[in-house]
């Protein structure tokens, strides 16, 4: 029985992994496949996608037509349970708490963590994204290059299954040509974008998401990923055969009982558990990494959320993958004589260089798309196409008032009507009601398009996290205090998004309900809305300027590693999850290497 408790655990363990999401799931997978005995600790409850996913439930079956509430922020059927921007009994502090200068912190207390919720957009960082300071003098370089990570992007894409076009552009790399699955066919609104955006010099590429658009090749991929390890190959082949390709129906966010999309619980954990090397304790709220007399981590302490008991578990090495800011919180709360300011914090940089994604959105209405015949526009549930950043050379020549770029996530079509689909149509209908309103609903249904910019952030000194001196959570654990401020670069970038989206909508023959936002303070979404926070335990070239080295290993404690977004010294426009997994696999290979050399 791989799900254990503090009293039924089957130690000794080689590695403790804190967390069960993208980074932790990847670390457990890579380590267990190579025979490492792993104990995984998850703060939330056990979760079984196959039994709990409300895949085919429709809004009319849910309270409030499936509208989001403080209890379920993303809607009743969203796969996230016990999670959201507020978690019961787990407060946090934001200073100052005013619009645009506060940070809201999404968490998911459940097995699989935030992978149960994410949009599954899987973009690779490009070469510039690893060396931003070298290119424009701002922020921090990573201590690694794209070429260091590229083999791991290949591996992760093959393992989890990512659709997309094998098309490369400047700083928008693709793999060797056989790591991606075919993209879904574009829908009508996509064709309109593909036709009109290039007239403005704006490129449109196939989207990339972690959804199986066809069955994975279980005959060749296991051999590529695990050469010389027939047992791992067999376990992975079995796991791949159990995943079904996309049904071209149901929202991914409601969970996927047939494992067609990536969730840690359906892709990383099943093969890791099948090795027999993984034990999992759920409801284990970790608050401290314990240190031996030799200066090495020897285990972690946690509160059993069910009993309230404090437990201590031990292992030869500790991997923190609790999510970027939770990992920083655990380190800052792990104080000792040797580390009075928190573990692995001799640099004083734990909690510094915290980053999020710039977000700004514009929707438009397109007369050409009115009154179309019935169409099934579901595809694989979004992002058939997207726009990569296209103005690198203009930025290099200082022709733009912001140094870093964004990509555009685009959507439209006749999705299943929701409680909001026909809200606020007065600007189009003139306030119709009665039979005319029903005619208007038919006319405008499917004629709306949405542009969402997702942009890079340069680290700044005004954005950091620390432990609040007073406030504690329901377990008695001191909580985080957030300081947050967007820089001028991010705000100007958001205005550029607004203006560009307005121009594209115009080029599509469309109209806007109200003018685009040109006030830099209002154009940008507040911190935390994009749920892309990274940094706080950043990797770097030396122990003074960073918390971990290029292998995600803390400088101060040689057997302590970070597997989540905490190690990002820079948040490019690319959504972070794919990179988190690639870095975690790379870190795990390093742990294996050091274990083989008896250094761990």
């Amino acid at each position: 029985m791989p799900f254990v408790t503090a009293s039924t655990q089957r130690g000794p363990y080689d590695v403790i992994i804190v967390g069960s999401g993208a980074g932790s799931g990847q670390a457990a997978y890579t380590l267990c496949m190579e025979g490492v005995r792993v104990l995984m600790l998850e703060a939330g409850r056990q979760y079984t996608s196959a039994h709990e996913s409300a895949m085919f439930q429709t809004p009319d079956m849910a309270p409030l037509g499936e509208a989001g509430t403080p209890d379920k922020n993303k809607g009743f059927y969203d796969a996230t349970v016990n999670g959201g921007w507020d978690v019961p009994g787990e407060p946090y502090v934001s200073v100052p708490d005013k619009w645009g200068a506060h940070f809201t912190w999404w968490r998911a207390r459940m097995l699989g963590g935030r992978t149960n919720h994410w949009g599954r957009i899987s973009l690779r960082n490009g070469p510039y994204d690893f060396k931003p300071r070298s290119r424009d003098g701002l922020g921090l370089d990573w201590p690694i290059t794209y070429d260091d990570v590229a083999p791991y992007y290949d591996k992760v894409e093959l393992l989890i299954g990512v659709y997309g076009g094998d098309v490369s552009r400047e700083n928008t790399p693709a793999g060797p040509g056989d790591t991606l699955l075919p993209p879904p066919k574009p829908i009508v609104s996509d064709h309109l974008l593909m036709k009109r955006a290039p007239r403005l010099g704006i490129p449109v590429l196939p989207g990339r998401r972690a959804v199986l658009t066809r069955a994975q090749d279980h005959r060749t991929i296991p051999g590529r990923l695990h050469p010389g390890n027939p047992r791992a190959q067999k376990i992975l082949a079995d796991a791949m055969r159990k995943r079904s390709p996309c049904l071209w129906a149901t929202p991914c966010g409601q969970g996927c009982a047939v494992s067609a999309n990536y969730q840690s619980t359906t892709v990383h954990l099943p093969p890791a558990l099948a090795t027999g090397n993984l034990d999992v304790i759920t409801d284990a709220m970790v608050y401290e990494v314990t240190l031996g007399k030799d200066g090495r981590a020897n285990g972690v302490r946690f509160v059993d959320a069910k009993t309230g008991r404090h437990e201590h578990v031990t292992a030869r090495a500790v991997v923190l993958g609790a999510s970027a800011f939770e990992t920083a919180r655990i380190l800052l709360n792990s104080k000792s004589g040797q580390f009075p300011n928190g573990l692995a914090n001799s640099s004083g940089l734990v909690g510094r260089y915290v980053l999020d994604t710039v977000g700004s959105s514009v929707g438009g209405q397109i007369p050409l798309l009115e009154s179309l015949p019935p169409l099934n526009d579901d595809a694989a549930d979004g992002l058939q196409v997207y726009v990569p950043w296209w103005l690198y050379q203009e930025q290099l020549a200082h022709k733009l008032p912001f140094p870093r770029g964004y990509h555009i996530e685009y959507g439209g079509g006749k999705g299943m009507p929701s409680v909001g689909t026909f809200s606020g149509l007065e600007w189009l209908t003139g306030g119709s009601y009665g039979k005319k309103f029903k005619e208007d609903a038919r006319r405008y249904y499917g004629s709306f398009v949405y542009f969402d910019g997702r942009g890079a952030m340069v680290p700044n000194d005004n954005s950091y996290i620390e432990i609040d001196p007073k406030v504690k959570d329901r377990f008695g654990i001191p909580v985080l205090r957030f300081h947050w401020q967007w820089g001028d670069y991010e705000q100007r970038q958001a205005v550029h998004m607004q203006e560009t989206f307005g121009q594209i909508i115009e080029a599509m023959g469309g109209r806007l309900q109200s003018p685009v936002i040109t006030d830099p303070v209002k154009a940008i979404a507040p911190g935390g809305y994009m749920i892309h926070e990274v940094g706080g335990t950043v990797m770097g070239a030396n122990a003074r300027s960073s918390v971990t080295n290029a292998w995600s290993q803390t400088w101060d404690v040689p057997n302590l590693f970070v597997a989540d977004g905490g190690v990002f010294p820079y948040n490019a426009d690319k959504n972070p999850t794919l990179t988190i997994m690639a870095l975690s696999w790379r870190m795990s290979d390093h742990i294996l290497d050091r274990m083989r050399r008896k250094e761990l």
Partner: protein
Amino acid sequence: MTDRRTTIKLIVAAAAAFPALRARATYMLEPGASPPGNVRRFEPTMDGYGPDPDLIKAYAKGAFWPLTMSTQQRQLAATLSDLIIPEDEHSPSASAVGVVDFLDEWISAPYPLQREDRATVLNGFAWLDREAQHRSGQPFAKLHAAQQRPICDRICAASRAAADLQEPAQFFATYRNLTAAGFYTTLAGRKDLKYIGNVALTHFDGPPVELLEKLGLA
């Protein structure tokens, strides 16, 4: 600080933090909807459905919190919903597919957005009845449609409504949004729109070439 309506509009526009959830983006709660204050301390609403409800179970309206509309309010709700979404050759009226229960559940819910809508809707109901009494000596629901429509015509568009009727016009907009929400999320509403998605397929073909040609997009 933006008000709640503004933040909800923002999230409607901003929904693709999550293209995957695009179709049901509106009315998703977003973080700014929380009360101000330095410490964000969320405790589950004891009378809501909580952060971990059983998602597989089917729920009747009123399963989580009691419905609160009076008989008279339900009559008025049905009358107004059917003025907004009447029966036609394509589909039944709003009240015929359970929209009154949807509205009752909505305005009876314990959450902040719904409590705000409750005040808007009940104040609007009272205004309609006052207006009807004033004009015809009867509550709104007892009037003929020919008497009801002139009242609605004055408040159905906030941009055209008189200055002293802005509040009733806001009510009408909210009520029309909620009626449409209740109606178009039902099977009958989806059929009215000829919605054909959300069926398991072995392959996804995209739109027919003839349509793309007709639209000049081939």
